C-alpha cells in the first residue's frame, strides 16, 4: 500500500516540476517572440556595443601593444553599458500594459517567472554581444586563443549582468527618471564582475595572444 502512496507523491512532484518547467519555457518564449517583433531594440544594443568598442582603436591610435592590453577592459565596459541600455525594458513594458500584474497572479512561483525574464533578457542583449566580441577583438589585434578567452569570459559574465541588472530594473520600476537611477544603482554592483573578468585576463603574459595558452586555461 505504501508503495502506491509513494508512487503517487513521486508522480505529483514530477508533474509539478514539468508544469513549472513549462511555465519557465513559456515566459522565455514569450519574451523572445516579443523581441523578434521589436527587432530594432535588439539591434540598438548590439550596434551601441560595436560602436563604443570601435571608437577606442580610433581614439588611441594604432599602437598594437597598448590596444591588446586594453582590449578586454574596453570590451567589458562596453558590454556593461550596452546591457544597461536594455535593462529599462526588462519589466517596464510589462508593467505599463498590465501583463506584469497578470504574471504576479499566475499560479507559478514568481521567482521562476522572473528567472525566465532574466534568461530571455540575456539571450536578447547578452548573447549577441558574446557573439560579436571575436570580431571586435580582432580590431584590438587579439588572435586565436586570446579571442576565445574573451568570448569565454563574456559568456560567463554577461548572464551575471542580466541577473544583477534585474534587481535594479525591478527596484526602479514605475519611478520617474528610472533610466538614470538604474545606472546609478546597478553600475556599482557590476564592479566585482568587471574587476574579476578582465583581471583574469590581464594576468596573462602580453604575448599570450599567439602562444602559451595553457597557463591561462588553468587559471580559468
Amino acid at each position, binding site marked *: 500500500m505504501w508503495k502506491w502512496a509513494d508512487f503517487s507523491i513521486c508522480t505529483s512532484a514530477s508533474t509539478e516540476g514539468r508544469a513549472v518547467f513549462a511555465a519557465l519555457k513559456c515566459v522565455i518564449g514569450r519574451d523572445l*517572440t*516579443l523581441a523578434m*517583433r521589436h527587432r530594432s531594440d535588439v539591434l540598438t544594443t548590439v550596434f551601441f556595443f560595436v560602436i563604443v568598442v570601435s571608437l577606442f582603436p580610433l581614439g588611441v591610435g594604432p599602437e598594437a601593444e597598448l590596444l591588446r592590453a586594453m582590449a578586454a577592459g574596453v570590451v567589458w565596459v562596453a558590454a556593461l553599458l550596452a546591457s544597461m541600455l536594455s535593462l529599462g525594458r526588462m519589466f517596464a513594458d510589462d508593467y505599463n*500594459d*498590465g501583463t506584469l*500584474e497578470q504574471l*504576479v497572479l499566475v*499560479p*507559478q512561483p514568481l521567482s521562476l517567472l522572473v528567472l525566465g525574464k532574466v534568461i530571455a533578457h540575456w539571450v536578447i542583449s547578452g548573447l549577441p554581444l558574446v557573439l560579436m566580441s571575436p570580431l571586435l577583438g580582432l580590431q584590438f589585434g587579439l588572435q586565436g586563443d586570446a579571442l576565445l578567452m574573451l568570448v569565454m569570459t563574456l559568456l560567463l559574465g554577461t548572464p551575471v549582468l542580466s541577473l544583477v541588472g534585474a534587481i535594479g530594473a525591478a527596484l526602479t520600476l514605475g519611478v520617474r527618471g528610472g533610466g538614470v537611477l538604474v545606472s546609478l544603482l546597478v553600475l556599482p554592483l557590476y564592479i566585482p564582475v568587471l574587476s574579476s573578468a578582465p583581471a583574469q585576463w590581464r594576468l596573462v603574459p602580453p604575448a599570450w595572444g599567439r602562444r602559451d595558452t595553457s597557463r591561462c586555461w588553468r587559471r580559468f
Partner: protein
Amino acid sequence: MLNIANLECVRGDRQLFSGLSFTVEEGSLLHVHGPNGSGKTTLLRAIAGLVLPEAGEVEWNGVSSRKLGEDFNRELLYLGHHYGLKFELTGYENLRIFAKLSGFDISEAEVEAALKQMGLARCVELPVKVLSQGQKKRVALARLLLQPPKLWILDEPFVALDVAAVSMLLELIQQHVADGGMVILTTHQEVDVEVGRLQHLHLGEH
C-alpha cells in the same frame, strides 16, 4: 468561500476604507459601488493580492490568501483596468500564453473557440495593437472562457464594450454564478442579472 476581515487600505496619506468585512460565498455576485476615488479598484487589488492592505485579512476557505499564495492564485482571475495583453502578440498568442502559465490543459482549438465566441473570429491572427478598444477588451474577456477559475474579480468589465458584448458578458457572469462561482465586480452601470445571491457593497459613504 472568500472572507474579508477588517480590511483597511490607504493611498498616499488618505485612508480609503477601514474595518471592511464581508463574505462572498459560492454562487454569489458582489457588486461594489462607490464614487470615483472611493477605493473600489484598490479593494479589488487588495483582494487579488496586488496591493498590501494596511490591516486586515483576506481569507480563502478560512486560510489567509497570502499563506495560500499560488493555490489562491489558481482559484482567481483578475481583470483590471489594464487589459493585461501584449499588443505585439496576436489575440490567440496572448490567450495561449495565459493558459499555459495558468497551467490550463486546453487545446489550440479551444483557444480559437473562445476567441470566436467573443466575436473575434476574423482577428485571431492579428496583433492586438491593430484591434479597436472594444475588441481588445473582448480578447481580455475571452480569458473567462478558458477553464475559468472559481473567483472572478472584474474591474469595470463593461467599459468599451458594445451592447451585444455587454449582454454576452452578463450572460457569462450569470452562468458562472449559477455554476457555483463567485464574481466580484465594479461598474457604474446597473448589473441586470438574475442570480441566486446578489450582494451590494457601497464604498465611500461612511
